[in-house]
Every structure is written in C-alpha cells, then in structure tokens.
C-alpha cells in the first residue's frame, strides 16, 4: 500500500515540476496546486497507512487495544490543506490581476519591474 502511494506521490511531484517549469502563469499555478497535494499525500503516507482501525480508545481502557491508524498525519495534512488552499486563492487573484495589469500571462514578458534600459553605474567621479 505504501509503495503504491509513494509511486503516486512521485508522479504528482513530477507533474508539478513539469508545470512549474512552464512559461505560462496559469500552468505554474496549476503546478503549485498539484505540488501542495503531492506533499499532503506524502505526509499522509509517511505516517504509515493503517486501514479499518480508527484511532478510538474503547470505553474503560486507557490505551487502544490494537495498532490503530495514526491520527497525527491527518491533523498535519488538514493544517497543510487549509494553508495551501488559502495560498492558492491568493495566487489565483494575483495571477488574474497580473494578467489584467500587465496584459500577458507569459512570464518571460513580465519584466515591468526590471530596469528599463541598461544604464551602467557611473564609473568615475
């Protein structure tokens, strides 16, 4: 089970990297979305997968009777999902505003912030 998930995480990382290397901003944003999900799945898998046994301690005992699913990675993934979701929302708005203001979604053409023409600094006093 872990092996299968590990391969899936690898595929997602590969896809995300491919999209991140693209020139179009929309594809980069999709790459970020996939990257976030790949990492979530990675944390989930790193916490070991145990099926069918929820981490609930029965009444009148202090410890779970058998090995249960690990609840901690789920809490971590939940936190990470919320954060990556809010960041993605911000990025979508940022990307849209960039397209509106700069008139392009090609990152090679996004050079408004770079110096306009190349002025060398003064060399002598």
């Amino acid at each position, binding site marked *: 089970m872990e092996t299968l998930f590990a391969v899936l995480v690898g595929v997602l990382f590969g896809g995300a990297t491919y999209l*991140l290397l693209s020139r179009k*901003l929309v594809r*980069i944003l999709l790459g*970020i979305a996939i*990257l*976030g999900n*790949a*990492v979530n799945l*990675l*944390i989930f*898998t*790193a*916490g*070991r997968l145990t099926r069918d046994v929820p981490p609930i301690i029965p009444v*009148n005992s*202090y410890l779970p009777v058998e090995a249960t699913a690990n609840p*901690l*990675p789920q809490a*971590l993934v939940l*936190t*990470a999902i919320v*954060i*990556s979701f*809010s*960041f993605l929302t*911000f*990025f979508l708005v*940022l*990307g849209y*505003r*960039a397209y509106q*203001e*700069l008139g392009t979604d090609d*990152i090679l053409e*996004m*050079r*408004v*912030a*770079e*110096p306009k023409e190349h*002025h*060398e*600094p*003064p060399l002598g*006093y």
Partner: protein
Amino acid sequence: MAATKTAIDLSAAMVTQAVPLADWLLVAPILLTMAGGALTIILRKKSAAQPWIAISVISLVLLSNIALLNHVLSNGVVTMVMGSWLPPFGIAFTADALGALLALTASVATLCVAIFAMNSIAANERRYGFYPFLLMLLCGVTGSFLTGDIFNLYVWFEVLLISSFGLQVLGNEKTQIDGAVKYAVLNLIATTLFLAATGLLYGLVGTLNMADIATKVKAFDNSGPVLGLATLYFLAFGMKAAAFPVNFWLPASYHTPRLVVTAIFAGLLTKVGVYALLRVMILLMPEGRDWLASLIGVVAIATMLTGAFGALAQTDIRRTMAYLVIAGIGAMLSGIAVGNQVAISGTIFYSMHSVLIMTALYLLVAFMYQMSGTFSLREIGGLYIRTPLGAGIALILLLAVAGLPPFSGFWAKLLLVAGALEADRGWVAFGILASGLLTTIAVGRIWIFAFWRGGNENTVDGIQALPIAGSADASDVSASIWLPLIVLTALIVVIGVLPEGVMSISEYGAKTLIDPTVYIGSVFGGAQ
C-alpha cells in the same frame, strides 16, 4: 463515572503544576501581535489611530522580548508547552539565547519601521491594512524564532509569508504585481519543499518536537535518509534565505513595494531562513551539516560574491541594497559551513547585525529619495550640503554594512573569519574578506556620488547643482523619519563600540546549538 475520572493519573501526560509567570513571556509576543493585528483590522477605517495602536503594541512586544532575553540569560533555555501536554505530545515553545536575541532584534526593527511608516504610508494604504500586516509579520517572525516544534515552524513561516504578500502588493502598482508574482511563487515553493522535508522527517523519526528529533536522529544507525533530508532542508531554507543559486527572486522583487515594507522584508525575512538553517543543520542534524559542509561553503562564497558584484553593477540604489542583503546572507552561511563554536556565534552576531543594518539602510534609501527625488546613482547628488546629519548617518550605515570597524558588522565578520581560520578553512575566510572589500567599494561609491558630489553626473567639481524639482528640504523631514534612523544608527555604533554583551549572548547561543543537552533537558527535564 466521576470515580473513573479521578482515577486517571494525569501527571504522566500533562504538566500538573501551574506554569511559572515568567514562562508566559514565551507566548506574550505572539498573543500581543495577534491581538494588535485583530484590533487594527477592526479599526481599519480609523487610519489616524492605526499607527499609535501598532506602535504601542510593538513597544509592549519589545519590552516582553527584553524580559524574555533576560530570563533566558539568567535561567538557561526556557520551555512552555501548549495545553499543558508533556512534550513531545504538546507543541513546545522553546527559547534559547539565539531565538530570544533574534526575536528582540526583530521587534526593534519592526518598531522603527512602524514609526517611519507614520509619514511615508498614505492613509488609503493604511486602510488596505499596512499595520495589521506588519503586526502579523512580526507575529510570524517571532513565532518562528521561539517555537520548538518543526511543524509549528512551518505554520509560522506561512503566517509571515501571507502577511508579506499583503505588504508586497500594497499600492497595487504594475511593478508591484510583477514583483509579487516572482516573490510569491518562489517563496511558496520553498515552504512547500520545507513541508515535504518535514513530512519525510516525521516518517523517519516519528516526532516533530525539535529536542526529540535531535535525540532520535543521533541514535539513528543508517545515515543515508538523514543526509538526504539535510540536503532537502538546505535547498528549502536556502531558497528562503536567498542563497546562490536560488536567490534571483530577491533583486527582482525587493525594489517594488513601498520602501518601508522593503526595509522590514530585508531586515527580517531572509534572516528567518538563516535561523531555520541554524536550527536544522546544527541542532537537529549535525551529521548532515558535516556531510554538506563543503557544499555550504561553496554556496556561501558564491552568494557573497554574487551579492558584492551585483551591488557594484547596479545603478538603482534600491537594487544595490537588495544585493547587499544577499552578500550578508553569504557571510551568515559561511559560519554554518565552518560549523565550530566561534563561527556559529559569528553567524548569530551577523544575523542580529543584519536585521538592524538592512532595515536602517532601506530607511536611509527612502530618506535619500525624499531628499533627492531619484534612485539613480547617475542623477543623485549634492546631499551633503543639504543634510549634513543625513550624510553622517549614511556614512556610518554604509561603512557598517561593509563590516568596517568600529561598527557592529566588524565584530561579526571578525568572529566568522577567526572561526574559519581555526577550522583550517582559509578559503572561506578569504571569501568573506574579498566580499567585504568589494562591498566597501560599492557602498563607498554610493556615499561619494550621492553626498559628496555637487549634483548629477555632469556636475563639475566644486559646483553645487540645484536640487531636482519636488525633492524635500532637510527642514521638511519630520521627526518620525529622523527618529528610527538615528535610533538604528546609534544601536549599530553602540554594539560596535561595546560588543561584549552581544558577543557573549551569541557565544551562549552557539554553545546551546552545538551541544543540545541543555536544550533537550529544558524540554524534557524541566516539564517533568
């Protein structure tokens, strides 16, 4: 039912006695900044009251951080766990000398920026949330410095990151959106890599508490996974700290936001990356650092040289300063590359110095722009006659960033070079000195052209050219601009003349990092 409840012995899992009052200092800065951030959002339309709320909250944070540093220095490493659950189950906040010193410095820099912003941030931009974002940025930075849990460190990274995005686009200009795209995408990728590394680390050792990780990693037989993780962490934090070759987002974006915003970015954000590297490389995985030492050394020297040469090649003063931030990061990394106690205390000292000096330099650039109306080294000039006090402050700050005595940067570089020579890494020491020389040329040139020369580049020697239309007179500059500049400059001079205090704190911090028994003892011993 009530009988079974009392039968449970809680002391095995929880701290049963009340938390000492002094330990609340650990969370006080975070609670204060969060409350202040909420209050300034609620009062978002009262733009006249906002600066005062923010300044008083940050002053309280500053006092609390002074008390915390004092507490750490007299009682050793301090730990407090959330919800009273014993570590490693509860999230621990652990302050050692390194964290407390940087938290204090960060609050000083933020206070100066908050005062400076009173007159340089327009009322409508205050309504768009300058002060709430500033407070939440301080919250994230302080949280990162004080947390003792690696996943919690990730959460604080995200807190400071989202606040910095908000500050970056304040003003909504074309260049800002352009800069924000590059800044935001690359920083988010860096934090996502950090999260991936943390997930793998959890899979490896089964804990997230830093003290617990440090113990368990040491007991690990197979070093392969640890070395891999150390490399991944180095990439993630190197990207945040703007280490070569993943530093190109910094000069592409740092000149776009308001200059006060850039001042706080340059002061705090990259230093958080260096701090995280110190924690992970020295405290958690010393084995990984030993293995990566040569690579970190090469990266450090490349970073220093990119910074110094980049600073030399720029005409825009804002971009020169951005490259000086990078040069400083290289110097801090060189201490991690050397890794002995002297070099690590050099890195801690340099981080503290860098927070103050980079904030002060960007505030100085804002002041120079107000006085001259230009950022171009070709057009600026004649500032010495117009503001002798400003010229004096500028000379001190520019020499201090190059690491010349008697200012604070000198002692930090001295420790770094001494550490490198002690560890037989002469090439690292040579890199530090070479980049120092190049930086001196770059900053000396700024001072000569902006202050010494009479006007723009065609002005004949000895002639005082007319100022560019629209630039302010020295008497127009308000106290809210002079005060932070003078305070920061005074701090830099005082630390330079009397370095013993900061030096002993840095040494103490380095000692705790290299030999983590005190740190681990504070987390596990103190609470039991």
